């Protein structure tokens, strides 16, 4: 996905998403240069300097939003290992496995709020689960409220509504 300034110039391409599972949000993005066979860009984007993550582009104010890793918060400059949640097992508080994390789902229009995970369901097939605002993550597994089971959706369209309903459930925050 391209990184575009509000002035309409494309300045970079997303290389990787730096995600904090504990905070439930994207803390930054690492970048590639734009164009065919272009290499890595040293600069990163922090969540604070992202104007919005949309369906088709990541918007930033201007090129000054790109910062060098040594000037960025420690989380970003040297992300601790175990931040990659893909492949992690999703366990409910009751100890049942729902499946494995395939991908993270970011709320579009926000600057990186993660609202759900795409999972390989233990029962087979792909599903989408809404996330509470915070949850426990170990690096190999994450624990979600029991109620999550009731909110597994087959597609992203269903997930949007499920997130709102799920987060308004008693005992979920």
């Amino acid at each position, binding site marked *: 996905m*391209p990184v*575009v*300034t*509000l*002035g*309409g*110039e*494309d300045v970079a391409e997303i290389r990787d998403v730096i995600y904090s599972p504990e905070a439930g949000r994207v803390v930054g993005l690492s970048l590639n240069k734009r164009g065919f066979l272009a290499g890595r860009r040293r600069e990163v984007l922090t969540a604070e300097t992202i*104007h*919005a*993550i*949309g*369906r*088709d*582009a*990541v*918007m930033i104010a201007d090129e000054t939003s790109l910062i060098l890793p040594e000037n960025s918060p420690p989380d970003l400059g040297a992300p601790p290992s175990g931040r990659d949640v893909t492949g992690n097992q999703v366990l409910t508080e009751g100890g049942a496995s729902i499946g494995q994390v395939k991908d993270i789902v970011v709320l*579009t*229009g926000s600057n990186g709020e993660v609202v759900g995970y795409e999972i390989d369901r233990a029962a087979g097939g792909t599903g989408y689960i809404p996330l509470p605002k915070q949850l426990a993550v170990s690096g190999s597994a994450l624990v979600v409220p029991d109620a999550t089971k009731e909110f597994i959706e087959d597609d992203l369209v269903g997930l949007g509504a499920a997130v709102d309903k799920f987060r308004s459930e008693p005992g979920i925050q």
Partner: protein
Amino acid sequence: MSERFTAASGRTVVSRTSAEELGTLAHIVVDAKRRQVAWLVVGKGRKAVVVPWDEVSAFGPDAIMIADESALKAPRDDREQAAADGKLELIGKRVLSDLGNDLGKVTDVVFDPDSGAIESVAVDQREAPADSLLGAGSFAVIVLEPAQASAG
């Protein structure tokens, strides 16, 4: 009276002093922050030159009048070079909202030929008002995300 970019394209550019034809309008470059026409890009043989809006003495229905040939400037910086190369042409450019969603392509731009003020930008079948225009670069035109349909 309003003028459209698509209607104005190809119009003859004439010197007021010599009455000579100096070229034809290739396209128009806007200053998105000021919501104003910034330059006219004029094709002259195979070369493209830029004319700052201030040098246009009249943007008429049949011809664009400029004082004389000295108003035609070779590109002086990167942005003017990009303009002359056609990279800042708006028609056909992709439109992104400030929230990062693709809204389509620019099909036309409506402006006031007296002041050069941009009035609206046509994006596919929709009109984006000039005050929603945030930026116009070589990659995309940026407008405010249209409000969701709401009552009133």
